[in-house]
Each structure stands twice: as structure tokens, then as C-alpha cells.
């Protein structure tokens, strides 16, 4: 009905609205596509390439093959997967168990524990005290410094508590009357019901830990333990060419030294995004739902 009443002015208005949004899409996606184009172009063509290009000039996978065979990059990938995986499992388990207790309205000490958690949200003493705690616990230069720090996120905890509180009381009481202990109720009833919420929290943790670089940068001296983000930072932000190209190749213009630095950087940036792109459909499915249902900010 609305369609049939559209005047020419309304059509033009609509065209302007859609083009504005499409312009936003271009501004968002073009810089990433340009990096892809640069990383896939024939090495000789890269120097003159426009920043506006979105298609490769010639086609070469050399940049990607050099990067994927580079020991620093390989270690970075393994470290990132390890740190992200272990952190996420610890985070989800710890958060779910704590949220289950805190979601029981009659739990003794519930209010005190809530305040304990809220204080950590509003008061952050900063990076130096964090650093010293790590040092005192002997965690510096160990994977655990990065894994255990921020293991349980107070915001995600609150989101899960809110979700658990919505589980109908009758269901829980029925299970308790049947003689199920709290562990069984949690395992057989609460967890299956909370699957969407747990998936959302897992994705939150995955993205957070994959993107984490600051703690890894200050806690891990040993370059062999660096996750991909820190390797990327050293190469692209600090401009440490040797880190990826290697001293010999850089000096003698052989191997990776022959490749254009711009193309190598572009490939390295994209390599770090690949896992995010891989789970992006899931992110869209769960994050948007989670955010739409009232949880503020991811």
C-alpha cells in the first residue's frame, strides 16, 4: 500500500538514503579490500598501485606463502590459537559457574559478591599494579600471565546472571524436588537452556582474546611466546622490517627482501583478521541478538 503511494520526491529521498548507507559500506570495506588487492598483486606491480584499487594487478600468492612459511608468523599463529583457546574455555567455564551461583536469589552473601564484582568495573587501578601482581605471582613471561588476566569478565558475568535469572523458577524447583543436586541441575538443566547465551559469551571471549595485544606485549618478553597481534604490531606499527623479512634477506635483497614491504604488511594485517572473518557469520547471529535484547555494548 505504501509503495503505491510513493511520489517522485519520496523515491529520490529513498535513493539518497540508500546511497548514503552504501557510501558508508564502501568507506568501511574499501580499505580492507585494497590491502587484499595489494597483497595478491604481482610483486613488480605493487609500488605504483593506487590506494583506491580493489582488484589485484596481476596475481601472485608469493606474499602469502612467504608469510605463512615465516617462523615468527607460524609461532604467532600457534601462540594466538593456544592463548585464545585456553583463555576462552577458562573464561566461559568460570563465568558460567559463578553466574549460576549469583543468579540464585536466596544465596547467602549474594549482595556482597555483587558489590565485589561491581567495584572491579568502576575502579581500575591501572597497568602498573596489574604488572606487579603478575610479577609477584611469578607469571611474567609465561602464557598464564595473558591467559589468567581478565579470565572472568565482569560484564559478561552480569549478562549471564541476567540470563540465568530468566530461567523459570518452576523448572529449577521441579528438578530439585526430584532429588537433583545443584551440580546436576546446573549440568542437565541450566546449561542446555542457556546455550544461546553461552554461545554469545564464548564469542565475546574469543574475539576479545584474539584481539588482545597490550597485555601480551608488556608481560611476554620472550618473542617466541608472542601472539599474532604483537608480531603484527612489531612489523607494521613499529616498522621493524627485520622481524618479518629477516636480516639477511633485507640486506641482500633476496627471498622476502625482494618482496614489496607494503604488500607484506598488507598480507600480515589480513592474516590477523582471517579468524575474525571466519566466525563473523556467527558473530552477526549471536552478537546482534544479544545486543538487541538489551545488553549494552560488546
Amino acid at each position, binding site marked *: 500500500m505504501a509503495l503505491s503511494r510513493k511520489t517522485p520526491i519520496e523515491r529520490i529521498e529513498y535513493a539518497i538514503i540508500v546511497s548514503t548507507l552504501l557510501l558508508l559500506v564502501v568507506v568501511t570495506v574499501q580499505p580492507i579490500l585494497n590491502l587484499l588487492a595489494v597483497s595478491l598483486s604481482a610483486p613488480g606491480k605493487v609500488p605504483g598501485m593506487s590506494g583506491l584499487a580493489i582488484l589485484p594487478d596481476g596475481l601472485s600468492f608469493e606474499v602469502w606463502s612467504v608469510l605463512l612459511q615465516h617462523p615468527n608468523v607460524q609461532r604467532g599463529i600457534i601462540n594466538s590459537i593456544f592463548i585464545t583457546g585456553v583463555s576462552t574455555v577458562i573464561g566461559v567455564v568460570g563465568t558460567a559457574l559463578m553466574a549460576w551461583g549469583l543468579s540464585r536469589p536466596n544465596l547467602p552473601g549474594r549482595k556482597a559478591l555483587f558489590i565485589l564484582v561491581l567495584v572491579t568495573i568502576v575502579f581500575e587501578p591501572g*597497568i602498573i599494579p596489574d604488572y606487579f601482581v603478575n610479577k609477584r605471582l611469578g607469571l611474567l613471561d609465561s602464557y598464564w600471565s595473558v591467559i*589468567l588476566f581478565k579470565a572472568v569478565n565482569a560484564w559478561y558475568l552480569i549478562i549471564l546472571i541476567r540470563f540465568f535469572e530468566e530461567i523459570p523458577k518452576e523448572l529449577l524447583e521441579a528438578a530439585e524436588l526430584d532429588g537433583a543436586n545443584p551440580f546436576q541441575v546446573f549440568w542437565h538443566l541450566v546449561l542446555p537452556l542457556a546455550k544461546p547465551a553461552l554461545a554469545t559469551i564464548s564469542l565475546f571471549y574469543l574475539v576479545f582474546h584474539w584481539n588482545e595485544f597490550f597485555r601480551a606485549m608488556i608481560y611476554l618478553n620472550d618473542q617466541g611466546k608472542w601472539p599474532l597481534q604483537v608480531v603484527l604490531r612489531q612489523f607494521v606499527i613499529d616498522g621493524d622490517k627485520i622481524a618479518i623479512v629477516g636480516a639477511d634477506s633485507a640486506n641482500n635483497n633476496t627471498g622476502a627482501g625482494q618482496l614489496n614491504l607494503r604488500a607484506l604488511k598488507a598480507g600480515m594485517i589480513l592474516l590477523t583478521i582471517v579468524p575474525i572473518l571466519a566466525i563473523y557469520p556467527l558473530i552477526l547471529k549471536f552478537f546482534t541478538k544479544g545486543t538487541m535484547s538489551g545488553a549494552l555494548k560488546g
Partner: protein
Amino acid sequence: MTDRQHVLTSPRIGNVPTNSSRRAPGRASAFADGWRRWWPYYLMMAPGILFFFVFHYLPIWETRIAFEQVRIVPPNVWVGLKHFQVLFSSPVFWQVLANTLIISTMKMVFFLPVPIIVALLLNEVRGGSLRKFIQSAIYLPHFLSWVVIAGIFIAALSPTDGAVNNLLGMAGMAPRSFMTDTGAIRWVLVFTEIWRSAGWDSLLYLAAIIAIDQQLYDAAEVDGANRWQKIWHVTLPGIVPTIATLFILNAGMFLNADLNQVINLSNDVVRSKIDIVDTYVYRIGLQTGEYSLATAAGLFKAVLGTMMIVVAHFVSKRLTGKGVW
């Protein structure tokens, strides 16, 4: 409360008498009773509680080095407010505090309207798949790390082969090195923030828009309102509470000008323009080793920040019914 009532009135519980006879006397056995019922929950919460103590409360205890002289051979010596006096008499500290406030203000003024406008425009898009396509694209940057985003923008803003300077060149303008331009670098922070999060934040407003009663639009239509009148008289008033909440919450985070962003987009040339409290703490603390001074600066920011968040929470709660937590 209801749990217990249910148990007492339930015919299936055979051992009610023993239970209630145990509950009657003094506090000690009431505690034992509570413990018997609740220990499984505390066992399950134990890892989480331990985590909060070790990684959140121990650091709070560690802030005492802001009041101490750190010695290589312990124990440290208590020096009271000495480090704070040094801090407050340091021009560099006031400069980074000013930078923090300037950058936060710029972000607030120029960032805040963008997601609102995006949400309003998105709401006008009728085709479901077109809308999904636009959303999928503009939400993506929110999930990229600042290292990646800095890498993308260092490339896009390059004076020789960056997209922005290519465009400027086509318009006949001279190339500009934005990343090393003291006059431009703060705008780079504002723009990259918009690039990263304006799309995603529009989702919060879109959720509020979708919750608006459709009858209001129908009524406006009957009154002959056009697209813009409907936006102005129905949609905008409908999302004012959300706008107010997000504005106040952002105000509460005013001293967080985003360490991760600044640390990746900064360089020696422009540092003085975008050095914020957090990067200052990092630099003098972990790079120069002035632990006490850095902790004092961090503590100053933390205390001020806490006050701002708590005030923001209660103002927001009062005005819009929604708080930080």
C-alpha cells in the same frame, strides 16, 4: 523465600520434621543449615571468586606503591603523598590530562551523532536483504583489534599511495601526511573511532527504534506526516532515553581516551598531541621504570574515573531508569 516455602508445603519431602527441628535453635546451626544447602554453589563459584580476588583486588592492594619509595631490596619505604606532589607539579602530567580531556570531548561531540544518524537511515531501508548487507559490512570493524585498524589506516593515510591522498590528488590537492601531522592526528583518532564503532553502536539505537510502538507511526501517517516528520516527531522522541543513557555513560568513561587506540596510532612526531594519561602511565612506568610515579598517576585517574562513573550511573538511573549496571 519461595524456595523454602515450596519445600515445606511439598508432600514429597519425607524428612521435613528433622529439617525444621534443626532450624529452630540459635544462629550457629542456622549457619550450618545454610552451609549444608549452599556449599555446592560456593564450590562452583570458588574459581571465579578466587579470580576476582587475585586479579582485581590484589592490584588494588598493590596501588600502595603510589605512596612508597620502591627499593630494589625490600621493604619499600612509605613516603606519603610525595609522588603525587611530584606528579601535580609536572607540566607533562597536566599536558597529558589536557590531551585526554580534549580527545574525549572531540570524540563525544563528533562521534555521538553518527550512530544515531546511521540507525535512523537504516530504519528507513525497506528491503530486508539490502539492510542485512549494509549491517553486515558496517558492523565488521568493531571486531578488529586496534593493531589491525592502525595498520589499515597507516596504509590508507599514506602520503604516497594511500586512498585518502589519492582522492585528494584527484581533486588537485597536495598530499598530506596525516599520521605525522600534529594538526591532523587528533582527527585521525576521532575518525578511526567512528570507522570502528559508529556502525556497531547504531545497533543499540536501532534496537530502541524497533521497540517504538507501530501505532504511533500509523497515527502520524493518518495525520499526513511525511518521512522526515515521522522521524522528527515519532522516532527521535522514542530514542531520546537511549541517547541520554549512552551520552551519560560515555561521560562516565571520559578519562578513558582509549589506550589501545592511541598506543597504535601514535609516533614520535605527534606524541605530544595525543599522549593521554594511560599512555603516560605506560611510558613512565614500564618503559622508564618510575613505578611509583606511574602508579600515582594511574591511581589519580582511577579515583577520578570512579567518581565520574558512579555519578553518571546515578544521574542516568534517575533520568532514564537505566544505569551502568
